[in-house]
């Protein structure tokens, strides 16, 4: 994935104007395990949202496999997100009317996976993330940490090519953070899934192969 001269300005041409990203030029290779880091308000979540097509850049281009996805229609972008990108949101963002089982299986159902295959994958992920006991509960009936694990399970369930995780460990204790990172690392190493985090968690940074540091919407370090 390539980002060329990406800018993002909120409330342009108004007194409230905020330059969230300025001239971002980055390339992510397949199988990367990268963290976008920086202080709060540095633009890491905005950049992650733009990479995932949840938000659009004010200007600049984004390419995926040489194809410019920044010019995609919302419909085409939704298709891309469905097939190739898994999201882990900081606020979990589970669907509240669906049970844990239905949340994990939701994307696989949209992709018309075989029912048997869906159930097998749900049980597999539930075992890794230790959420077997809560599969039939609604999100409102489980803790924040459990919701985060369900969100992770939903994001990886369909084995997307790219996982975007916004502060995935923010609501997890150290043990669960470690378990989550191990699982994502395994996916990254075994299945060549590209993982990009937005985080300032030291543990996540330690685990990352590449760290991009942002400050006031500008890349100040890429190591």
């Amino acid at each position, binding site marked *: 994935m390539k980002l060329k001269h990406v800018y993002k300005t909120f409330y342009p041409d108004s007194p409230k104007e905020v330059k969230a990203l300025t001239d971002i030029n980055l390339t992510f290779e397949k199988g990367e395990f990268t963290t976008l880091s920086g202080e709060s308000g540095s633009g890491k979540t905005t950049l992650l949202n733009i990479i995932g097509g949840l938000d659009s850049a004010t200007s600049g281009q984004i390419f995926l496999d040489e194809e410019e996805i920044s010019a995609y229609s919302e419909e085409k972008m939704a298709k891309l997100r*469905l097939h190739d*990108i898994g999201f882990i949101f900081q606020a979990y963002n589970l*669907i*509240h*009317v669906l049970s844990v089982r*239905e949340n994990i299986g939701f994307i696989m159902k949209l992709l018309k996976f075989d029912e048997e295959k869906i159930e097998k994958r749900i049980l597999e992920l539930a075992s890794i993330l230790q959420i077997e006991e809560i599969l039939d509960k609604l999100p409102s009936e489980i803790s924040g940490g459990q919701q985060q694990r369900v969100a992770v399970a939903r994001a990886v369930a369909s084995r997307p090519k790219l996982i975007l995780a916004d502060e995935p460990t923010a609501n997890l204790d150290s043990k669960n953070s470690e378990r989550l990172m191990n699982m994502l690392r395994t996916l990254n190493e075994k299945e060549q899934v590209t993982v990009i985090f937005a985080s300032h968690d030291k543990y996540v940074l330690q685990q990352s192969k590449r760290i991009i540091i942002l400050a006031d919407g500008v890349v100040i370090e890429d190591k």
Partner: protein
Amino acid sequence: MYRHLAWLSIWRRKTRSMLVIMMIALSLSGLLGLQGLYDGMVSHLINTTIRSDSGEISLYAKEYRLNKSLDYRLSPLSTVENTLSKHQEISAYTMRLKQEGIVATARKSLGASLTGISLEKEQHFGQLDAFVTEGDYSFGKGNKGALIGSALAKKLNVTLHSRVIFTAQDATGEINAISFRISGMLKTGNPSIDDNAVFVSMEKMSAFLNLQESATQIAVRVKDTQNIEKIQNELQALWPDTDVLRWDELYPILIQMQELMDIFSLAFYAIVFVVATLGIFGVMLVSVLERMREFGIMLAIGTPYKMVRNQILLEAFFLGFIGYVGGAFLGGVLLFYMSTAGVDLRAFEAGLEMYGYSAMMYANMHLYYFFQAFFAVFFATLLSVIWPLRKLKKMKPIQTIQGKML
């Protein structure tokens, strides 16, 4: 899949769904009830006028309505009676002999009209007996009694069995007087009767006026109101020297009132319709808006917009439809009750009677009310989802998740 999601969303949020359905049902039943009652007020007024006086068609001698003299009367009656009784499309008729005069008690006298009627014929014609509020529907022993309009009785300060004397000019020009005891009081809702009329037996009236086989009015009820004009034309052709008039020609004020009421009714109905529609719209809109974040999440993880749209529409129309069914049922029960038992507005009796309305109001009940109500719910439901759907389509998923709707 959207069907499953819509169903889960409705089922797993029972309280919210029930509240939406109840709000729609209550707004709708109120709308139906008010519409029926408003319609009923006008048609009740027309109906009592037809029953108590004009029929659908009335026959008068030429000139009678301009110059209420007994010189202009219908006579002989046997030919007319013979024709009317054999007419296939006429359900009832009655003959009245009326003379203006003065009704007096020992203490008070007032201008009034004395009308000779056949109780049996009036009962068949317009159920005049149903208007009796005090006493009996009878002229007592030897036909010496009279039925009097309730408002007139009040003005004269007379009660049942009080004696009244009626003075009027007979057919020969002589001033005659006759006394009656009040045997019953009538309240028709027709001010020309309630404020002004005294009814006595036809025989007594004929003798009092020195007339044989005469009437000043013959009122006719038709079987099918669609045929009024046709029957009017037929009767007019049969008796060209007679005024054959429809109820709306006799009481143009009723038509004007009806038209005026239609305008008020339309304005009132429009307000109620808009309020009810806005109520439904508001409830539906809030129920969609409070879930925009959820729809944003669905879009963010790749759910096609069409699926989210279909889910929202299906949920809204399902809730709207159940609300409509509930509202139509409640409204139907309400209308049925108000059309049979009536609504007692005696607290406002004086004001209502001033305009000829009865203190007991009966609602109308028509099928088209329910079609209109269906349209109101459909319209409100559609309106409530259009804006959120447009927003959802235009906005980026992250904006929807962050709640940047407005």
